[in-house]
């Protein structure tokens, strides 16, 4: 920086600026030197140019008019939340208009029943949680910037944070988006359901770094506040031991909600800033957090403490109360800023490796550090295998600067050699453009570029970000795996598409893990049944009524090999738990059938299985009158979801059944005291009638229980299944299921009702016919508001000759 830069000559006409000003008014239009300087930067320390002007629209209408004007004048638009991004995503070029969302801050009332809220993009991450506080709910993604970062920015970057280990990244908490494309057309994406089959534009837009569209409103999923939290703080004299402890902890089947770590340098900086009284002579400090019912968190905490000590922790402390817990977290959350005390400048990295590679990478970073003679300080989202090495340098010293960047590139290469990704949550932006070609293959890059050209042919939206230039050389495609490989240290399984799912689940189960989509029990042909393959799961998202699952394939699919209609192999994603390197083709394609691409192989995340399943059968006479009780029961069960397996409720009140009943399955750890309590709670909810039977089954044997005729055959053997989900915003319909269906299965995660009778769906409900006569049906047409022209263009991109199946609704109107 040298003095005040002279006002740059702008290429745009004064008429353009005048029109912009007319749209935005005094508070929304700014083009003075001060604002152009301030909005030329974000938290990344990267510089682009001074923008032409800054637009701070007051509402969606203004935003739309701004986009249309820029489109007409072919002026680039760079969308900005609060400028907390670390990859330069909001750094504009000299000829751009920066559109800030800071005045788009409306929040709708919380729908506490549906666990959702609708917000404008300028609402802060923390603001959502504060807004939901009175409802016992919160917004789970919690990046360190959460106090300042906006929801729009979180969506653009697919932000993560410590608690994403349990709850998943921002994408998992998006139900519905309204967004403007490069022409200023308003689109809606998704019905706002927990499960929606079809090409998933939510997955595509989330993490697209403002290059495909601008979000104007989002429906967010909220997560129930835990009953109790137990937080451990462990100190390790040896950093590599600490990394190994993380692998050991998760490999033992413990399911903490967060495992965070900082190295000695960060610990020292935080200690200097806040004076918590932590030891500074250790190499690592680790935070491990469990949630659940009080006794449960204590038991988990004790087990974890013993494990950590066994792995070399010198001191393990437990937060005594909430205040102490928040103090511990402050230590982690403020780490980034506190580093400002240590070094004038640093390269903030965001690499992520398969979990089992964490200790190896930690070791390698020490070698790289010594080799280049630079300091590297690191904060870890350790449970995710995501780490933020900060390579320190003084930007006034050119040699130091060069060495620091060389070291950073070596760390990236080491990460990629271990099967990792260059970015887990910060995004590519400008900062990692040079490294993206080291990670993705040419065909994947071609598809990504093709998508950009479809959504934004004139390159108006955030140009120069995320897509490497034409001169880039991409890596060759990752070889297609030939057989099933379990990587137990990584908690992943990779398998060719034709591998039977049941075989994988059985093998995983034997080690205490599974892909928690609930497919293990289905030997009798409902949904995918035992004939379902890995490819089917990728293509169809769910396997059928999912007993005790905790989500859909979209949640646990990490990596995908697939073939386009033109027979070209591409590889998307990586065997890591978080990845935002380029558009998210993996999750966009998951559940889209075999319409755009043919899945060839996939890697899934493995999660610990529940130890047991509590099973209850309650008589259910006079079902109509009991409807409110069932409603309350479902709500109660939703609060009992411990992340290992989701509770399930099976209701049969049909006239064919002589003894109408409700069956409850409650997976979890084997804890007699807890199951006793659950039984009593449910008895009270159902009006005091005791269960007809109750037993606790080993999880692996629960399938036998379900198949053995203990519950009516229809529940598992009907060849026709439909899933039903309550649409948002229908305040009149507060019930969880259509009243006129008398046979159904309700599952807590994903929140769905399965029924063999699609005719039962009523207003406020969405029905997707999943299978008929034992065959999986393709997804129905997307919800109104989804741009069909984009979908058709993408079909042409992926399948130019129509070699793959084409549902009728996708056929070209003009053909």
């Amino acid at each position, binding site marked *: 920086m040298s003095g*005040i830069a002279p006002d740059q000559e702008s290429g745009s006409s004064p008429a353009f600026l005048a029109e912009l000003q007319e749209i935005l008014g005094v508070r929304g239009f700014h083009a003075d030197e*001060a*604002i152009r300087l301030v909005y030329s930067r974000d*938290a990344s320390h990267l510089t682009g140019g001074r923008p032409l002007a800054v637009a701070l629209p007051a509402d969606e209408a203004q935003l739309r008019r701004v986009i249309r004007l820029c489109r007409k004048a072919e002026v680039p638009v760079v969308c900005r939340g609060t*400028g907390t991004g670390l990859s330069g995503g909001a750094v504009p070029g000299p000829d751009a208009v920066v559109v800030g969302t800071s005045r788009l801050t409306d929040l709708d009332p919380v729908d506490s029943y549906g666990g959702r809220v609708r917000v404008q993009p300028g609402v802060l991450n923390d603001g959502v949680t504060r807004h939901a506080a009175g409802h016992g709910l919160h917004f789970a993604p919690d990046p360190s910037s959460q106090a300042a970062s906006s929801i729009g920015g979180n969506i653009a970057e697919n932000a993560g944070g410590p608690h994403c280990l349990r709850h998943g990244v921002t994408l998992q908490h998006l139900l519905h988006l309204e967004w403007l494309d490069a022409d200023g057309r308003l689109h809606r994406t998704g019905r706002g359901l927990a499960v929606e089959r079809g090409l998933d534009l939510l997955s595509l837009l989330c993490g697209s770094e403002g290059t495909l569209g601008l979000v104007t409103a989002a429906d967010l999923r909220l997560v129930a506040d835990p009953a109790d939290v137990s937080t451990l703080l462990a100190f390790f004299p040896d950093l590599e031991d600490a990394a190994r402890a993380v692998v050991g902890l998760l490999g033992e089947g413990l399911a903490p909600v967060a495992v965070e770590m900082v190295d000695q340098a960060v610990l020292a900086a935080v200690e200097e*800033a806040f004076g918590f009284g932590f030891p500074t002579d250790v190499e690592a400090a680790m935070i491990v957090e469990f949630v659940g019912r009080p006794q449960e968190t204590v038991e988990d905490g004790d087990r974890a403490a013993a494990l950590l000590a066994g792995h070399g922790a010198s001191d393990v402390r437990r937060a005594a109360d909430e205040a102490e817990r928040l103090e511990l977290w402050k230590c982690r959350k403020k780490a980034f*800023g*506190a580093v*400002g005390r240590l070094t*004038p400048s640093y390269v903030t990295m965001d690499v992520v490796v398969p979990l089992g590679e964490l200790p190896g990478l930690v070791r390698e970073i020490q070698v790289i550090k010594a080799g280049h003679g630079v300091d590297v300080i690191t904060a870890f989202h350790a449970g995710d295998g995501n780490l933020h090495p900060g390579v320190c340098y003084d930007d006034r010293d050119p040699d130091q600067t060069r060495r620091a960047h060389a070291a950073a590139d070596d760390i990236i290469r080491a990460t990629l050699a271990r099967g990792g990704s260059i970015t887990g949550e910060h995004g590519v932006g400008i900062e990692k453009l040079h490294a993206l070609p080291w990670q993705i293959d040419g065909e994947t890059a071609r598809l990504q570029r093709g998508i950009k050209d479809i959504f934004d042919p004139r390159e108006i939206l955030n140009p120069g970000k995320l897509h490497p230039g034409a001169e880039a050389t991409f890596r060759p495609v990752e070889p297609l795996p030939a057989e099933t490989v379990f990587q137990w240290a990584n908690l992943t399984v990779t398998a060719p598409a034709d591998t039977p799912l049941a075989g994988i689940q059985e093998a995983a189960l034997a080690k205490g893990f599974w892909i928690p989509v609930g497919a293990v029990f289905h030997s009798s042909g409902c949904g995918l049944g035992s004939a379902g393959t890995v490819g089917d799961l990728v293509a169809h998202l769910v396997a059928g009524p999912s007993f005790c699952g905790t989500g859909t394939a979209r949640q646990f699919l990490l990596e995908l090999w697939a073939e386009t209609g033109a027979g070209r192999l591409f590889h998307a994603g990586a065997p890591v738990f978080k990845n935002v390197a380029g558009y998210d083709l993996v999750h966009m394609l998951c559940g889209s059938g075999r319409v755009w691409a043919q899945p060839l192989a996939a890697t899934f995340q493995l999660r610990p299985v529940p130890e047991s399943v509590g099973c209850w059968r309650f008589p259910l006479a006079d079902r109509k009158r009991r409807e409110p009780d069932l409603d309350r029961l479902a709500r109660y069960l939703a609060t009992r979801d411990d992340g290992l397996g989701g509770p399930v409720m099976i209701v049969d009140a049909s006239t064919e059944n002589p003894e109408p009943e409700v069956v409850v399955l409650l997976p979890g750890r084997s804890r007699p005291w807890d199951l006793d309590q659950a039984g009593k709670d449910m008895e009270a909810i159902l009006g005091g009638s005791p269960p007809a039977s109750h037993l606790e089954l080993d999880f692996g044997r629960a399938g036998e229980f379900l198949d053995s005729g203990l519950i009516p055959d229809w529940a598992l053997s009907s060849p026709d299944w439909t899933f039903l989900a309550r649409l948002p915003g229908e305040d009149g319909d507060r019930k969880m299921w259509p009243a006129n269906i008398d046979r159904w299965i309700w599952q807590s995660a994903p929140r769905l009702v399965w029924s063999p009778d699609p005719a039962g769906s009523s207003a406020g409900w969405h029905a997707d016919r999943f299978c008929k006569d034992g065959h999986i049906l393709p997804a129905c047409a997307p919800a109104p508001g989804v741009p069909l022209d984009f979908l058709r263009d993408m079909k042409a991109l992926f399948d130019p000759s129509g070699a793959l199946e084409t549902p009728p609704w996708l056929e070209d109107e003009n053909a």
Partner: protein
Amino acid sequence: MPDAQVTATVSAERQLDNLLRQCVQCGLCLPHCATWLATGNEVQSPRGRLLLLGEMLPSTEAVSVPGVFLQAFDQCIGCRACETACPSGVPFSLLEYGQQRAVGLLTDRADGLPRPAVPGSVLRRLDRTGFLGFMSGVAGLARGLLAALAGRTWRHRLAGSPAGAGQLVRLLGSMPTSPRTDGELLRMLDGLSGGKSGGKSGGELQGEGRSLQPGPGPRIAFFRGCANAALLPGTSRRLHDLLVEAGCRIEEPVTQDCCGALAAHTGRPGRAADLRGRNREAFSGALAAGAVIVAEAAGCSHELGQYGEDFQEKVIDATVLLAGLDLPPAGRVPLRVVYHDPCHARHGQGIVTEPRQLLQAIPGLELVEPVEAEVCCGSGGAWGLRYPEISADLGRRKAANLIAAGADLVVTSNPGCLGQIADALLLDAPDLPILPLTDLIWYAVQKGM
């Protein structure tokens, strides 16, 4: 420029540069900055201002520092909330003051700085007790007149009035008041808590006479504060009474004057320095005798603390002092109360727990927390008169948060905040009263007798 002076400037610049580099641009300050919240414009955020400062730094002698740069600094309320929030420990106020010194010469050349909504002749006199008392009288009369003419909703009806009249209304509305007589206070709080005063109305606490009998407690030099003395005389007296009750030995140096905060706020460093000197002298005797200086207004205690290290350790905010004293046991006050932290206390002096301790010690009282407790109310002393629009927006925002906390009563401990919030509450919740914290403590002690 003499050599020594050049060296001094260069080293000051280097110092500023090093401080600036402490900012990692993370943006965590943004949601704590009142002016950013009100405008959504990052120029009016701490990070934005630091970026501008970095740009200006090498050009202290350049001819053109754009007016908009200086305005960005002028628009800073100085609440120091960003300093509390900053994980890198950037001493924002230090940077800003440094910068003001550096570019002070250029201020004349800067165009676009707003003219104060209130004439300079008025602004300059706001730190004079007599004038304030006069203004308060005018404000009281005007409020009464308006209420008579326009009914209970007069403030509402004038909120959207044209600029000139609107500013006048703001000035009138934001003059802080508190019950002058103890009877008035007792009646108000009795009514609010639905009970009758259990204590002897006009009992021991209501000592009009200034007890100078030495008690066993600490030796206290009482700092009056111009706004408190002129506008909240009842409250000042009640603080005095509480201290006497707790056994303090009180003296009140007669030659004391305004702390100088308002002069500093209104760009009159000369007068501020003059006032400092006067107060240093006025309190020198008491300090030598081992007294500590107590100020009821957080703004005063903060400013006195800036006099220098020797002074800083001898100044104590009234809330901190009261929290540490053996007050007589408080009676039951069954009210839900929300406390507003003055920035001068919370950010300027790190006072967060003491006022809450005081409130929580009152039986039956339920303390509730508002959202954005750390955000400025938009008063900022004279700042609000220069930026009336942003100030009014912030007042409404603060009022909305306090209202949402669901309390029966708002309390605070700085006259500027008291007036600003009272004015905003008049618009959005005319039935929600606001009082100085001291008054509520006095009442609780009274109820215990």
